[in-house]
């Protein structure tokens, strides 16, 4: 009796404690599993964890629901505990994944699709209509995964550009940024001759940091330009262009030899003028407007595509696409998946919705006609610094679609890029070591 009452007490208290731990999220999803009474399909949409994007999707959902009373869309922000990727992983594991979510990069999508957690979007009725009505046939092409399917609908695509301190370039006798490696080296020599250790060409602590995603904003930008957009890793194969890769590493090594690189902790080096060359994404401009109002486009700074090796036409330069998109989860019911596609189709059937996105977020919509469609003209006229991003959306190469992308990109840094930056390995040896390590990891 004593044992029984103690056990009963334990069970009761456990139940109370566990119910207190519940978020209710799972319940909501279970309710959504079926089309509810009255034929209304409820879909859960997880937006990026920032107020602007969340507000945009809430507005879109509200507008769509006004035209379709058979769908209810619950928009909420992805929790970042500890990261948005981890939250999605936990939600899938706990069987409380949403119907769809945005803010998914291609590498994470590869991890999810590898785990059969995503629906191949091209298998859903109406998806091809989204591509044609949004005018994104060319932009979405490199997004195709190695298995031939499209798992992500890119929402925005930042063709990453390099920023140049135009004020310093002018002091050195240049009116425009250099476009080839030898031109950049010439600028570096003049810069060091004039400023010594007060200014560097490329001042950025990330250059010596092996964290996987940091390679997107240095190695990949240069490599995409040098290789004409070679995929580097395709599926489970290393397909890197050795000539282009070695040229990139040699270029970085030459910059180091000229003392043009500062890979140490330094606060806002480009903004403060310690560095005169850095990767710049369009999200930067809002911060600059508030924190560094002295930075004016085509006055104190300018933007350009990555420099290319000598002998390559700079006009053909490619770059890395910092791009994120939308996915639909395999755990959603067929009705929810179809309702999700119909919602996306409605949103992207009108360029005005993309224009609204562009205006509110500064993130260029992933479409082929961004620089030609009249809907975007007022935005680009008001913010001319966004024009080069719009023009280069089709020249931007998305990240690899390998589920091991974190490991693989860490190898690029550890075996080659970081070491070359620090002068610890010769470029050709770095490339060879990196290639061997990547091939081993891909097995």
């Amino acid at each position, binding site marked *: 009796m004593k044992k029984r009452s103690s056990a009963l007490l334990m069970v009761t208290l456990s139940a109370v404690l566990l119910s207190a731990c519940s978020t209710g999220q799972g319940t909501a999803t279970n309710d959504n599993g079926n089309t509810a009474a009255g034929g209304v399909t409820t879909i859960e949409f997880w937006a990026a964890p920032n107020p602007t994007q969340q507000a945009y999707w809430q507005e879109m959902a509200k507008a769509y629901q006004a035209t379709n009373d058979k769908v209810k869309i619950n928009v909420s922000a992805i929790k970042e505990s500890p990261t948005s990727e981890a939250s999605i*992983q936990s939600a899938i594991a706990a069987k409380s994944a949403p119907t769809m979510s945005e803010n998914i990069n291609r590498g994470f999508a590869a*991890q999810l699709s590898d*785990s059969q957690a995503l629906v191949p979007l091209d298998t859903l009725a109406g998806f091809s209509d989204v591509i044609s009505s949004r005018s994104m046939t060319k932009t979405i092409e490199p997004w195709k995964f190695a298995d031939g399917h499209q798992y992500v609908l890119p929402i925005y695509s930042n063709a990453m550009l390099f920023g140049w301190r135009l004020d310093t370039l002018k002091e050195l006798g240049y009116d425009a940024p250099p476009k080839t490696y030898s031109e950049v080296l010439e600028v570096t020599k003049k810069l060091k001759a004039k400023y010594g250790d007060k200014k560097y060409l490329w001042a950025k602590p990330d250059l010596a940091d092996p*964290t996987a995603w940091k390679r997107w904003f240095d190695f990949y930008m240069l490599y995409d330009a040098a290789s004409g957009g070679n995929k580097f890793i395709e599926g489970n194969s290393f397909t890197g262009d050795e000539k282009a890769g070695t040229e990139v590493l040699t270029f970085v090594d030459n910059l180091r030899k000229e003392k043009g690189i500062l890979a*140490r902790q*330094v*606060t806002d080096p480009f903004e403060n003028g*310690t560095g005169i060359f850095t990767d710049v994404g369009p999200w930067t401009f809002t911060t600059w407007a508030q924190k560094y109002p002295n930075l004016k486009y085509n006055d104190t700074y300018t933007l350009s595509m990555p420099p290319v090796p000598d002998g390559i036409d700079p006009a053909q330069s490619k770059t890395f696409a910092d791009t994120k998109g939308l996915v639909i989860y395999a755990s959603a019911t067929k009705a929810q998946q179809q309702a999700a596609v119909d919602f996306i189709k409605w949103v992207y059937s009108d360029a005005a919705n993309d224009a609204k996105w562009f205006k509110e977020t500064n993130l260029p919509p992933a479409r082929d006609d961004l620089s030609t469609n009249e809907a975007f003209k007022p935005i680009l006229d008001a913010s001319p610094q966004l024009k080069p991003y719009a023009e280069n959306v089709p020249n931007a190469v998305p990240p690899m679609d390998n589920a091991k992308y974190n490991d693989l990109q860490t190898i690029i840094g550890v075996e080659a890029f970081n070491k070359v930056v620090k002068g610890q390995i010769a470029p050709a040896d770095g490339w060879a070591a990196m290639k061997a390590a990547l091939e081993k990891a891909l097995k």
Partner: protein
Amino acid sequence: MEQRNNKLGWLFTSPYLIYSVIFFFIPLIWTFFLSVTDWNLIKPTFNFVGISNFKEALQSPNVHAAFWNTYRFMLIFVPLVTALAVGVAVLVHGLHRFKGLFLIGFFLPYLSSGVVSALIVKGLLSYTSPINTALRGIGINVDWLGTPFTALFIVGLILAWKFTGYYALIITSGLESIDKEVYEAAAIDGVKDGQRFWRITLPLLYPSLYTTLILAFGVTFGIFTEVYQLTGGGPGNATNTWQMEIFKQAFSNLQSGYASAVALLASIATFISIYIIRKLLEVWGKRNGWV
């Protein structure tokens, strides 16, 4: 009566027991299970892989680095924080007024966010910061976070700054519990001022020191925020820690099975190390006749 007391005992201990079952015991069993699978928590199916996750972890240079770095942090952090905490406690103990106020002041860093302190240090160590600019002016040009030893030292220093106040609080309570008559008796017996600390204070402080030392050694097995924010485990693997490695594998690489194996190895390393350290501290105390 005994039966009633028994029930009451269960009632009062049940919140902690339930908490432990839910947040320690079940996750521990779950970790054991995950560590022998290749599951990433997302895949609909998974395979039992036996001890291959453990074999892979034991051969991983990242895990080797995490293992050794823990002891490197120990060598920097434990002596530093102990010396600072004892120093602060002795100074505060000697005060006649505002003792509590000073102790609260020193305790505040313990409550501060590791993220914030790491970001402040990042700013202080920036290439263009006044400190570094002044140092370069006299010919000292140090890449603080890009050099293995200085990166380790900086992280150790932040941790020492954070924990000094907390440990000083424990040591102060130890100092407060030493009867003044002991010092008076010692003075009559001819103990000089310089000998007081080593001959009287330190032996009587042993229980408090033992607690703070065990806590300090334990901290080095759980370092994460400062390293994550400041160095990301670099340069190379110079500041990689167990927690960093588990985080990277579980949440960046989505290798839950492998991360669980690393977590279990970390637990084993922690348990054995703390056990040995505890025994050594006990031997130290016994040898000196403090316990």
